[in-house]
């Protein structure tokens, strides 16, 4: 047990009072059990295989109290920061608290519910009870347990069988310096019923320079033949910690298409566990880490093929500049029953400076014999010949580097079907690239 772990234990009783759903006995029990598990193990260290490349010491050096203030008000300047997704249904959280002013989820079609976790615990506690902390568990559950014990808010989206939602649903989490030194333990639940279709965009934005911690768990269920496009933009404040875990359970003939772009925070982990609990599943996990200056961005995925005949393709890319560091850990499990599985993994990293570092670790655990699996990892620098070619036509070294860097990642966005989300991500990427100028440049 680390010292910090014990500080959390000391203060837990005090924090409990501010948590939602205290009247629900099952929830109190769930929270207590989860906290007990966390208390026993504490924060993972680099000796834990799943955290081999990410040192949590900076996060664990201090206690972040859960953000339980009554309401985070939407700052006047915020709307400019919200990616404009046109007709999207939007639910907004400011500093971990629901903010109805910015939310625009009134006109949802029949069969679709979008609530805050607080609302859901009041209005539909059974729904939460059924879907919280299900059997799709990560190998190292410390942050999931802490989240279950301390979750204060989040978005709950349910789509009834057969309902096809046209406009995307935008879950928007904004953090300002008012949340300095506190933790937002957010829990999102997304339930896509049989044959339904939806696009969900999760975005996390920090506007200040303060240290804060977002600890988010998103639990997803994609039922038979449902299609869920799930996109995420992580653009937290520069001193922020962002620990995110997405636990997705996918059933027969369903599609789960995930894309995450991560470019904020000082230490960020985007962990996805996809349980392919059916046949004929089309699962796609893709993402980009954009790291410059000094952040540490970690993408960790586990794809668990439990049944025969499903496909999962994943491609993650990182661009790493300055003194930044990225991690990709990709585990693929093919259980003995999961014959005829197709699993393809690719991780490509572009280093923009000598000090930049990219760690990559594929891990295949194939227990079936009739499978198609491949994996590949590359770490490269900008192509000198291409750089010279562009400069020889008049582009400055910075412009040439930026153009080639963009070329390395930009085609990843082409597969995002929703235009407004694609453009929002392209915009975020362009801003990031514009901030690159000077990286490694000498001319």
């Amino acid at each position, binding site marked *: 047990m680390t010292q910090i772990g014990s500080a959390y234990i000391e203060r837990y009783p005090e924090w409990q009072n501010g948590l939602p759903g205290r009247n629900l006995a099952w929830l109190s029990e769930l929270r207590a059990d989860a906290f007990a598990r966390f208390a026993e193990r504490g924060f993972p260290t680099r000796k834990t295989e799943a955290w081999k490349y990410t040192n949590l010491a900076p996060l664990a050096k201090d206690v972040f109290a859960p953000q339980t203030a009554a309401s985070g008000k939407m700052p006047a300047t915020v709307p400019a920061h919200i990616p404009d997704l046109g007709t999207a249904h939007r639910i907004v959280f400011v500093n971990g608290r629901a903010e109805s002013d910015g939310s625009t989820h009134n006109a949802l079609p029949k069969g679709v519910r979008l609530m805050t976790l607080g609302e859901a615990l009041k209005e539909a506690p059974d729904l939460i009870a059924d879907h919280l902390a299900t059997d799709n568990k990560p190998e190292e559950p410390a942050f999931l347990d802490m989240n279950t014990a301390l979750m204060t808010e989040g978005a709950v989206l349910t789509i009834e069988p057969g309902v096809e939602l046209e406009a995307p649903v935008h879950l928007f989490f904004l953090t300002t310096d008012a949340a300095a030194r506190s933790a937002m333990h957010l829990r999102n639940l997304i339930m896509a019923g049989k044959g339904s279709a939806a696009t969900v965009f999760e975005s996390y934005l920090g506007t200040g320079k303060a240290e804060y911690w977002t600890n988010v768990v998103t639990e997803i269920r994609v039922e038979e033949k449902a299609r869920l496009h799930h996109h995420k933009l992580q653009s937290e404040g520069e001193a922020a910690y962002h620990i995110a875990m997405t636990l997705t359970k996918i059933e027969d003939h369903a599609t789960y298409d995930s894309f995450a772009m991560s470019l904020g925070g000082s230490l960020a982990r985007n962990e996805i566990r996809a349980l392919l609990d059916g046949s004929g599943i089309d699962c796609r996990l893709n993402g980009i880490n954009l790291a410059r200056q000094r952040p540490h961005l970690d993408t960790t995925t586990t794809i668990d093929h439990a049944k025969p005949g499903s496909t999962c393709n994943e491609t993650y890319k990182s661009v790493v500049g300055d003194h930044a560091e990225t991690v990709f850990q990709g585990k693929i499990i093919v259980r003995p029953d999961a014959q005829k599985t197709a699993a393809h993994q690719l991780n490509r990293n572009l280093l923009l400076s000598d000090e930049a570092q990219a760690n990559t670790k594929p891990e295949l655990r194939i227990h079936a014999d009739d499978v198609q699996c491949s994996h590949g990892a590359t770490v490269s620098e900008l192509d000198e010949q291409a750089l*010279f070619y562009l400069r020889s036509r008049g582009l400055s070294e910075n412009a040439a580097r930026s153009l080639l860097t963009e070329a390395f990642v930009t085609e990843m966005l082409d597969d995002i079907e929703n235009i407004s989300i694609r453009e929002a991500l392209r915009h975020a990427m362009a801003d990031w690239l514009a901030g690159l100028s000077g990286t490694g440049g000498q001319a």
Partner: protein
Amino acid sequence: MPNLLEIQNLHVTVEDKEILRGLTLTVPAGEAHAVMGPNGSGKSTLAHVLAGRPGYEVTKGDIRFRGKNLLEMAPEVRAREGVFLGLQYPVEIPGVSNMYFLKAALNALRTHRGEQELDAVEFLKIAREKATLLEIDENLLQRGVNVGFSGGEKKRNEIFQMALLDPTLAVLDETDSGLDIDALKVVANGINALRSPERAILMITHYQRLLEYIVPDKVHVLSDGQIVETGGKELALELEKTGYATFEKKRAPDVAASAPAQSA
């Protein structure tokens, strides 16, 4: 005519190997010169050094372009000052659209010259004009830079870029190789369109055929890192018959003095 390009006693080392060993060459404004020479003699090295490609160490000598010290300029500055290199092996750049790249390039040049940047519509108009001149399919221009281009298409794209950027000095490294007969004519027309009293062209080639379309004012023979012979257009014909053997022996030990100097 003033000399547009003056190369004096140029020594260039690549990875500790001396490739150019005292090369002297001048090209006056208004002229087209050809450089011929055996494989590995240093022709592409010369072209790359003129364009400022990193990795080539100039250990001795001097290059002046319109009187300015070219060696002090970054590659992009040379381009903006009016130097263009048509590469022997154009680079494929997946993910960078030809049109986007060329608009950025042209606007960088225009800004350098104190001219207004072109917007997308204005650029497209000029690009279409030049593409028509060089009989380039517009679809090619929408693709990634040189991605999936045939050998000949890549060379034609180089000349298209040249036409667009309108350089003062065009250094063309084996632009003719890989072109079919019809394409060669089209490309030669494109190059001839650039000829004017203010400009100069330095063509590196192995074949007399290109020189039938673009008649050179001078032909230089580059052998083992030096210019060993300079003559008129008939020199190319002679080379076609005899090969380089006779010229290879001709090299004098004292480099600077032996190089056939142009009158300034």
